[in-house]
Structure formats: C-alpha cells, structure tokens
C-alpha cells in the first residue's frame, strides 16, 4: 500500500507528474490556486518548434487528470504549511470558497452569461473582460464555475449600493438562474490537513513586470504588448478570436517588432536568460505571418539561443521560408507618435554599426520570467535568482535541498515545455519510490547479481 503524493501547481509539469504517479497506482493530490489546471501552457496558442496547437496537446492530458480516480484535484487552494520529513509530510492546505457547489455544477455557463458584473480577465491578461461568476477558459478542467468574491455584487457590494439595499441581499442573479441550483453563497474557506509521502513542486513562473523598464513604455503606450499578451491575441480562443489587432485603434498592424531580453540578461533587472523567448518570438513572428500575410516582422535580438532539437532549423525556416527579419541590436528606447500611436524604436543595427530609428505599428516585449513565490510555506532553499535550489544540478536535477520534496518545470529555472515535462516524469518517478516505501538508493543485496553490491 502506498502513501499519497502532493503535487503543487497544475501546469503542464504538475499534470505530467500527477499522471505518471497515478499510472503507477500512487494516490495524488494536485493543488492549484486557479479554478482550472493547465497553467501557462493553456494560455499559449502554438508550441515551438513544430507549431502544434498547444491546447490540442494539453487538453487530452488535462481531461485524463480528471478521469483518473487516483488524482484528487484541490482547486482554488493554496499550501499553507508543510511539516515533517520524507515519507511523512503533514501539509495544511487552504481551500478557498468557490461559492459554487462543484458536485452540482454542470459547467453550462448560464450564470456567467447573466452575471451583470464585468471584471478584467486575468486568463486573457486583462485584454478582455469576464464576469464575476466565470469559467476560467472554455477548455477548463474541471469545467466548473467560480465566483470572484472580490467583484461579486452579492459578496462584496459597493458601499453606495449596500446602503440602498438596507440589509437585503443584493443581486443573486446566478442563484436564481442556475438550473442545477449549485450556487452557495455560504461557503467559507476550509483548511485541509493531508499526510503525504512526498511533494512535487511545479509552481511555475510569473512574468517580470515590464513597467519597471520605463524605456519601453509598457503600460503607457497602448501598442506595446508582452509575449503572453500577443499569444492570447493570436489564439483562436483569445479576446479577439485570433485576430491580431492593435489596442489603440483595432487596426491590423503592418509592421510588428519583437524585442528580446526585456529584463533578462541585464544586470539592472535579472541577469539570467529566460531560455524560451528566442524561440517563442520566432514562433510568434511566424504566426503573425500566417495571420496577416503582408505583415513585416522584425526580431531585435542579441543572441539567438536556438539550442534544442529542431530549434535551429525552426529559426532558419522562419528566416528563409517566412521572411522574418532578424536585427542584431538592443532597442534602447521606444517613443510613441502621439497622433498615429505608432512606435518609434531607437537601436544600433550592429550589422552596419550605426544608430537607426524605425517605426512599427506594434511592439511585443519578450519579458523575463520570475519564479512564483514558494518560500514560505515550503521549507526550501532558493538560489540567488529566486528559483528553487537543486541538490545536485548535474546528477540529481529534480531533488531540492529537502529530502522528499522534488521540483519540476520552471520553478527550478527557466526552461521550455519538453524539458518541463521530462523533469516532471523524473520527479514523479522519484516521488513514487518514496510513496511506495522503497528505500533510495536501492542497495539491498537481492538487487544485485551474486547477492553483492
């Protein structure tokens, strides 16, 4: 009989780890702070270097997570405390209320159609709005509705409306309309205590705030986007149904620029390389070409880091087949033309060695990544950049400094999807050994030929 394993974070790494563990008959608790699993990959349109549709690879995996009886999903939950040691961890998990009884909810979406409160949509990086009661995204797993208590008229009414109502409960449209009668405004936060054998941390990343780099004017100039925003823009499920249009005037851009190493490889911000941005920008430039055939795409780079299998071919293909322009030089300043809202980029074209200025309709910033906060509650050590410190980066790249806690994916350092997935499988393997009570290293005499190690 094996003990359960806790997987923190329901991104692609967490999903893979949970599936691999479940396959081996280990019970898994998969915790995610969002109402759906999927993580960052769910926000992507296509993957490099094969240009596969990200959702098409991800959603089958997400669906199987739901179907495995060994995997218990703890959505809208956060780990509060971890105590104990390998083989016997006691974890306190805070389960935030969703205000919807998920046993009853069918995910029909009637509630979010009728909800009067519009809220910026974090999943679409605030490019569009959602309702206060919402299903995170169309392919969400589990496909259940959640109420955003912060913006719900009933749960957090604005003071002026509250006065008018004189104690009577406000709104409640969803409660009336729900065909399954699943809405439950009385839910409160719950703390669950779990006893697990091992923990896999797949907490992932957030984007570095490009507002901290004032030269690029992100947030000030409307047509400056981050890579993830652009990804939502080209995505068919995104805010514009896959049409690339400018924030300022809804026009299709004719010239798009990507700026690499925004906040990464820069001692003023983060000195590490975020590894995937070169390929992601190349992919996005190709996608832009596919969406708008006559668009001019330029990528401003210092070094193209096309190190993975098929990456360099992908980069060559972008240049030769799609005509993506690569300019070597760091853009130092973006200025906005106040009339047309076009963006003027200043840079040194290092191939001719002098300063140039060029006008673009849209600029996409390849922003650095930052690890999500894991310490506290986890008793882990971090390296200088805030990523989780590894026990041995060469021969034991999934073990943290604490025995029984493993790490996979970008929480341990910047990497792409294939690397995250293979790390997740490795971490799952290691966690399964502990969960099944097999001692590591396996040095029992019976394991060796002749009975001797």
């Amino acid at each position, binding site marked *: 009989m094996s003990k359960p394993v806790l997987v923190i974070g329901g991104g692609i790494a967490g999903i893979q780890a949970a599936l691999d563990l479940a396959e081996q008959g280990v019970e898994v608790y998969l915790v995610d702070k969002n109402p759906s699993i999927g993580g960052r990959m769910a926000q992507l349109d296509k993957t490099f270097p094969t240009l596969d549709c990200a959702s098409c690879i991800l959603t089958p995996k997400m669906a199987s997570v739901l179907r495995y009886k060994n995997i218990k999903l703890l959505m809208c939950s956060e780990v509060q405390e971890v105590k104990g040691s390998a083989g016997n961890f006691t974890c306190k998990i805070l389960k935030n209320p969703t205000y919807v009884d998920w046993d009853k909810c069918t995910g029909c979406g009637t509630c979010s159609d009728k909800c009067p409160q519009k809220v910026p949509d974090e999943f679409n990086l605030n490019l569009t709005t959602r309702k206060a009661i919402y299903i995170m995204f169309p392919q969400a797993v589990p496909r259940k509705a959640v109420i955003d208590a912060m913006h719900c008229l009933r749960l957090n009414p604005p003071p002026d409306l509250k006065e008018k109502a004189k104690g009577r409960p406000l709104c409640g449209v969803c409660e009336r309309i729900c065909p399954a009668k699943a809405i439950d405004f009385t839910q409160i936060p719950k703390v669950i205590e779990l006893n697990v054998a091992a923990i896999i941390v797949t907490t992932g990343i957030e984007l570095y705030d490009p507002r901290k780099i004032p030269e690029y004017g992100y947030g000030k100039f409307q047509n400056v986007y981050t890579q993830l925003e652009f990804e939502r823009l080209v995505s068919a499920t995104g805010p514009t149904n896959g049409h690339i249009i400018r924030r300022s005037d809804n026009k299709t851009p004719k010239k798009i620029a990507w700026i690499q*190493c925004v906040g990464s*490889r*820069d*001692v*003023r911000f983060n000195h590490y390389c975020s590894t995937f941005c070169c390929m992601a920008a190349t992919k996005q430039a190709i996608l832009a070409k596919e969406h708008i055939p006559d668009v001019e795409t330029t990528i401003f780079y*210092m*070094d193209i880091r096309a190190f993975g299998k098929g990456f360099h071919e992908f980069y060559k293909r972008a240049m030769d087949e799609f005509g993506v322009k690569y300019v*070597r*030089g*760091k*853009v*130092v*300043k973006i200025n906005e033309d106040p009339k047309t809202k076009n963006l003027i980029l*200043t*840079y*040194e*074209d*290092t191939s001719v*060695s*002098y*300063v*140039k*200025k060029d006008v673009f309709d849209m600029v996409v910033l390849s922003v650095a990544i930052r690890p999500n906060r894991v310490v506290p509650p986890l008793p882990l050590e971090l390296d200088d950049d805030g990523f989780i410190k590894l026990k041995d980066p060469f021969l034991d790249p999934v073990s943290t400094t604490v025995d029984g806690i493993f790490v996979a994916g970008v929480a341990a350092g910047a990497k792409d999807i294939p690397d995250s997935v293979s790390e997740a499988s490795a971490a799952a393997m290691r966690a399964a050994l502990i969960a099944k009570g097999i001692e590591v290293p396996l040095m029992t005499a019976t394991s060796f030929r002749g009975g001797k190690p």
Partner: protein
Amino acid sequence: MKPATVIKRETVDEIVKLGGAGLFKCYQCGSCTATCAVAEGLFTSFRRVIKYAQLGIKDKVMSDLVPWLCNVHGDCIKACPRDANPCEILAALRRYQSINYDWTGISAWWNYSSLKAKLVLSFTLSLITMLIISLFHGPIITEYVALDTFIPWQSLILFGGSIISVIAILLLSNAYRMYKLVRGNEKYKVGFLTSIILILRFWIKTEIEALKIPDKRVRILEHLSILIGLGLFILLTVIAILYPHAYNNLTIWIIRYIAVGALLYGVGAPLIKRLKRSSNVHWYYRLFRHSTDWTALILVFLVALSGGLLIIFKDLGMPIIAYAVYTVHLGFVVPFLTLEIPFGKHTHWLYKLIANYVATRRGLVRGEELE
C-alpha cells in the same frame, strides 16, 4: 596589399590594464551607441571598437577614431545591461592609442605606472626646478614686488621658450604619427570647408542639447571653465611677452583673476567630488578612476592654486612671500609642461581635433537629423 590583421592577446591585457576592466562584460548589444547623443549624429558605432578590443585586433583598435569622438556624457553607463561601463573602456582605448602615437615611450611609462610613481617623479622635477631657481635667481628687492628682477624676463623666455619648443615638437610629431595611422587609404568624401562647418554645427548642437540635462550641465561647465582658464592664461602670457607694461592694466588684472577662478573651479570641483567617493557623486566614482586622470587634475590644480596665490601676494605687496610662491609656482609648472602636457591626459584635445577632422572628412558625421 594590406598586411594581414594581427590578433594579439597582449592588446587585450594592455587595454584592461589601462582601465578597460569591463571589456569582457560586453555582449555587443549596441545599447551604448543607440542611447548616445553623439552617436546619433554619426555613421559609426562606439560598440564596434569594443568588439575589436575584445578580439585583440591591434590595427583596428589603433586606427579607430571613435574613442576620441566620445564626449563622456555618460548615457551609455546607465543604458548598459552588462554594467560594462563603456565610457571607461573608451577612455582606456584613448590611453592605449595615445601610448602608441608617442614615439618616445614616456607616454607608455606615464600611463602604466602607478599614481605614486607619477607623483614622485613630478615632485622630484618640481624640487629640482625650485632648487635651481633658489640658487640662480636674480636680486631680491624687498621694497616692492619685482618678479622681473627676481627672475629676469630674458632667462624666463629662454628656459620657458625652450621647454615649450620641445613640447611643441613632441606634440606635433605625435599628432603627425596619429594622423598617418588613422588617415589610412580611405578617400575623403567631404570637402575641407564643408567638413569644418559640419563638425562645428554638430558639436555645438550636441553640447547645447547636453547642457539641458542637469548632471551633464555641471560636468560640461566644469570642463569649459578649465578650457577658459587655460585659454586665458595662454593669452595673458602672450600679452605679457609682447607688452610687458600691459601687466598693470585694470582689464588684464580682472582677466587674471577670472582665469584663476575658472581654473580653480573647473579642477577643484571634480577633484573634491572624486575624493569624496560617495554614492551621490556616482559619476566621478564610476569614471576617471585611472591614475592619469588624477595626475591631470592634481597638477593643474597645483599650478592654478600657486598661480592664484602668487597674484594675490603680488597685489597685496608682500615681496618675500610672493617670491617664494613664485618659485613654488614655477616648480609646479615644469612637470605640468614637460610630463602632463605631452604624455598625459592633456594631449586629448589634440588627438580629438585630428579624429574629428578625419571622421568628418570621411563622411562619418550625419548632415541631417536622424528620422
């Protein structure tokens, strides 16, 4: 045929030794050039010479003009994502180039030796000069200040003139060597007169732009006052030699004090800021850390201070002190003239002039505004 490009590891080591410590931090992004107000008006790059230096391509490093086109505005220091301090690398390249322009080899010693060694040599020269003056000076008149009698004009012109002639020969020969080196075989694209107008317009425009920014303004004003002070002193010396009696003229008297004031401010303010080394004088802490920068300031400061005291004591009518200060003043003037001017940092005006001229005639200065 052109000789093959020489790549030497020693070149790199020498540049690093001359203050280009950030050389290998650079990853060639071009931020320094793109953010530079000077580079915006040029068809050349400040980044490229750093690449040549990284690779140790000696002839390319030697013949590149851009180290002398830099006006040390310091925008690149803030823009550099690698904290490589491009301004300081360019300053190191200036030193490297000027060592190679100089045929005597004294410049090499001056740039590689420590601050202590330089100061010891300078003060030894000062002491020798003072000793010679105290042994061979003219009659001391105690009734009034008579510097002419203390050291007769004839001997001053004889010694000063010969020192200045030697310096002039050194400077001109080095300038010629530089010109030969940077001139290359490239054809000039811009006519002589057009180039003069182009470069003047370009520099006046960039410096006026720079004056609008407070921290640049302070530095430009300090540098300008050194220039004004030195210029006025040269003018005063010429007047004094041509019309010795004009020395008592009121206008001349005022100009003399203005010159001393300008020099003391221009040299003293940066010297004090540099000695403080606090974080709010970031600029001086990050740049000009090389020993030649210190001697350049210290020698000018001592000359200006002793000169200032001399005219004060002369005007106050205190003969004995005035004679003593005069001796000390000349003592400081000698190492300044014989070491600092031909071999130290104070050659930069000459090399800068040549570099600007060649660059403009090659068509490297953009005529119109960058769109």
